[in-house]
């Protein structure tokens, strides 16, 4: 009878780090594929990174769903987006990060949580409308 192998905690951490790096690499590769599919990166073209309806129409289906949901939520975590799209949090996190790398979505950290949002105004003050300031 074989005993369960004891996993070295250092190896576990290392494996975890390798997995995270591979995930990040995978996300970057997906973005590169998307950019190749849709021509140059928007900023390289001189066109601003604007997530307007025409951009939404040009996105692949899986990213469009995430982007439209984020537009509706305004400011959200991957969890909150996943709640709406009924897809897994990890999947949404990947798609949101792809949108960040494509320049359409911004990301900020508040404590341990990462929030994603569509920057509508460079001078936007805590997402408030002009009449609220």
């Amino acid at each position: 009878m074989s005993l369960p192998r004891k996993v070295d905690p250092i190896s576990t951490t290392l494996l975890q780090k390798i997995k995270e790096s591979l995930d990040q690499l995978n996300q970057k590769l997906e973005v590169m594929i998307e950019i190749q599919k849709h021509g140059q990166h928007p900023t390289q073209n001189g066109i601003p990174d604007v997530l307007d309806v025409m951009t939404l129409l040009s996105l692949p289906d899986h990213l469009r769903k995430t982007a439209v949901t984020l537009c509706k939520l305004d400011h959200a975590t991957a969890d909150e987006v996943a709640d709406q799209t009924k897809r897994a949090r990890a999947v949404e996190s990947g798609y949101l990060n792809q949108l960040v790398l494509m320049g359409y979505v911004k990301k900020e950290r508040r404590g341990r949580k990462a929030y994603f949002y569509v920057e509508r105004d460079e001078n936007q003050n805590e997402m408030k409308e002009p009449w609220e300031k």
Partner: protein
Amino acid sequence: MGKIVAIHSYKGGTGKTLLSINLATLYANRGKGVVLLDLDFRAPSLQAILKVQNSEYWINDYLNGVCDIKKALIDLSETHAKRGRLLVGLANPSTEAIREMTAKDRKWEMKALGRLLSLKTSLLSEMNLDYIIFDTSPGLQYSSINAIVSADIVLVVSGTDISDIKGTQRMIDELYELFEKKTGLIMNKVLFDVLESKTQRADLAKKLLNNNNLPMIEMIPCFCDILRTGGVSVFVNENPEHPFVKTLDRMATTIENL
């Protein structure tokens, strides 16, 4: 939570504005809280039909970030609704405003989309209203696509003309489906003899549906009585027993259950 309904079409002159005004009034007459917004910034028409004074703020101002949405609404509950609440937001009909709205850039359109999306919170949730009805511009342009993306339900109005039918089919395939919108079709101004023949009626519906699995909400006959009024009044209030109003009433119930 209430619903945002966008009334859209491929071509102009299909009856979007007539349906928007009458549907909004009909819901208000049923005791609902309704906001009707004119999002046809190229050809604003609600002000002329509803005969309201120039408003201090227009929907243009709300989308420009000048004012809160509540300031751009006019309460017509007392004059235009038997029960419930009817509020309207008008598009500025001045030539200068139309010119200004047609020259907006992509960044502005993105902010406008955000403001339309936020109506769900500011009107339906905070003001506890039941419906927001968008009377949109025809075709594929920024203002109409923004309205479609912000809406829960899209009602597409088509005439019987082949160019209208083909254009509507393209919009179904290339626009509504991409945004996964709940879509209902309305065929307007259908000839009476076509509607009376079961086969012709089915053929016409089949032509528009083109194997799409969308609900055909209503096929509305072409009523000369409506044309005769010249759009000077709200038809459902002036002619509550008219067959058009009965059709609209049935349509309103179907939309409620969509």
